[in-house]
């Protein structure tokens, strides 16, 4: 399948390994990955902080870029069949927020009335990594080996906005050599919440403290998740406290041990 990668702004700028591993993994599975170079960001930070007017041009830009990617090559597009992002939160924003912003802004006379429908069309073809693998490509065993003790944190937006359910766990269970340990109170938020982590830093830190305590009870070497943002938060705490457990994006595990050699 020909698939467009939406790397997300955070992975592009700060956590390129999550996006690189996604490329390496999909190519190893025999798919063709394209990276529409005009892409930037889904605009979720703006929307969740209340700045929908400012988010509008970002949303419009995202829709333009991926609408083009999804258009057949004969019509000047990239002819991709799906868009994938290594983030439940950014896909959640594309799927659940873009049309909402478009409609609100259309009501205020700031956006074109057709934008919401165009955003919904792009969203319908946009998948979080575990959704793409399990639902669209129909694989759970991606042929990876990762001989480490790992615990999985289900990120809030992948769990409750996208309902990825146990797809990431099914993928992890099929990884050879991986010792998967259940995380206590796994479904509790890590406390990131975007600008919440700064605006309500004390509460955010209290939530993080409990998440770190849960991670520590698993005695894992690695905590993994489908979102670089939540991993940045959990990892920021683990690093500050020198816990010794590291954060690794789900894509990097699925790409398998030694995937960096393919870079």
């Amino acid at each position: 399948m020909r698939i467009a990668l939406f790397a997300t702004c955070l992975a592009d700028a700060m956590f390129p390994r999550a996006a690189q591993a996604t490329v390496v993994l999909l190519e190893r599975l025999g798919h063709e990955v394209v990276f529409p170079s005009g892409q930037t960001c889904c605009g979720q930070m703006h929307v969740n902080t209340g700045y929908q007017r400012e988010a509008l041009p970002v949303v419009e830009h995202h829709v333009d870029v991926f609408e083009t990617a999804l258009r057949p090559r004969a019509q000047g597009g990239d002819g991709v069949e799906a868009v994938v992002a290594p983030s439940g939160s950014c896909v959640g924003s594309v799927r659940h927020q873009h049309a909402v912003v478009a409609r609100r802004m259309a009501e205020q006379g700031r956006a074109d009335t057709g934008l919401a429908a165009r955003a919904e069309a792009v969203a319908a073809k946009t998948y979080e990594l575990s959704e793409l693998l399990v639902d669209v490509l129909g694989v759970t065993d991606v042929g990876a080996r990762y001989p480490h003790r790992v615990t999985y944190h289900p990120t809030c937006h992948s769990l409750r906005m996208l309902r990825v359910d146990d797809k990431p766990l099914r993928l992890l269970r099929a990884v050879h050599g991986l010792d998967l340990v259940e995380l206590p109170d796994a479904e509790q938020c890590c406390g990131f919440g975007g600008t919440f982590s700064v605006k309500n830093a004390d509460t955010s830190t209290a939530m993080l403290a409990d998440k770190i305590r849960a991670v520590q009870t698993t005695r894992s070497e690695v905590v993994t998740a489908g979102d670089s943002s939540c991993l940045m938060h959990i990892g920021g705490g683990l690093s500050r406290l020198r816990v010794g457990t590291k954060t690794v994006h789900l894509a990097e595990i699925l790409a398998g041990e030694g995937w960096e050699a393919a870079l």
Partner: protein
Amino acid sequence: MTTFLGMPGLPVATERGTLRGPDTFPVAARRALADTQLRKNLGHATSTIRAKRARVVGELDDWEELRAAGAAIKADVMARLPELLVQLEENVTARGGHVHWARDADEANRIVLDLVRAAGTPDDPVTSVVKVKSMATQEIGLNEALAEAGIAAVETDLAELIVQLSDDTPSHILVPAIHRNRAEIRQIFLDHMPDVDPGLTDEPRVLAMAARAYLRRTFLAARVAVSGANFAIAETGTLAVVESEGNGRMCLTLPQTLVTVMGIEKLLPTWRDLEVFLQLLPRSSTGERMNPYTSMWTGAPRTSDGAPDGPQEFHLVLLDNGRTATLADEAGRQALHCIRCSACLNVCPVYERTGGHAYGSVYPGPIGAVLTPQLAGMHGHGADAPAGGDPVDSLPYASSLCGACFDACPVRIDIPSMLVHLRAKHVETAQAQRRVPGLPASAENAAMSAAAWVMQDAGRFSFAERGLQLGRLLARDGRIRSLPPPLSAWTTSRDVPAPPAETFRKWWARTRGDRS
């Protein structure tokens, strides 16, 4: 569709009150987070209720259908509120009750005070009333208004009584004294309950019996009771109160005069609709299949030969207090669907750590964060001033948007989406108030505008990424331990990894650039 109920309601007064606390959420939360006893009490209580709720909800294979039915009935009520309220008034009046309409807290308090005074005589005035736990009367500050007029209001719900005796405020919708443990409760009884046995222990049963003895004396002397209502049935004029202790039923049946204060959104169209809500409410709130006491009454009840059966006089006070303003906002009106079960509080990771007082409103937790700003009105400042802003304006930001509240809500109120909506309303209000035309309303606004400018163009974005890489200079051993404000709020407790040597975009261009 916009629904108007006669006079369009205005957001109520903006000064401190039962909906607007003294501090913004971040400030109040910081204080609460430092309280070890509070953290322990809350963590224990919420996890216990969460487990109970999960168990009884899991028993029903039609739970999702029940939730959908509850949401649909409430949406119907909001769409037809004016006609249903008139229908309720007609039916209550036809059965011998009296209906009063109160635009705001002051009006409601005045109506109740006049009714209490009218129940006494110049020689024998009413000096105290008994109360069933009621959010609506907390919202209007009725106890304080009665106290000013020399009338004592005695709370008869056990937890509410604990809160009242210790001159505290409730911190949870359903379990107002959730922040107290039994040792603390024993001390409160010893210090404040009249005629209490000095040998009181902290055994739950002993504490309950002490409260029971005190309350029985109170009930038998009471001439007036004030209640809230869980539901009102438009088609019959019936009011319903659900509770666990039976103290509510004492209030509803013993005194001569019963005054019920109810928010106008508590309506259900038909008797049949109760079937849905009497399943949803107890399972969501106390984690029980059925609540021990469900009291229903219609007008001023009479026996078959016409003699009073229960209160001789019944008055229903219908309260607006910001509700019609909430109803007018299509994206916000779902907050009025709330049946006050408090399931969202018990699953909220923020509430579990800060407790209810941090919200500064009688409505705490996730539902409070969407209901309070709509009832009380937002000022539009405080967007980036966590310490100096308006307490109510800070509430829509008191959430990580984790979505646990939406999943738990028995009437499917999409609280995360409403929080995002209210944040947008707040920012738009702030922008409309900007002091210098053309300039952004705040430093945060300027930063967000700049980020939006960068993020709508890949060229600008990759240029900004180059700037970000200067961050590598701040890093030691691959991590950054300290950043300037406002990002210092992050690095106080968390590291930031050093930016990578090569962005994804550059790597792609270098390795696969010829492809796309």
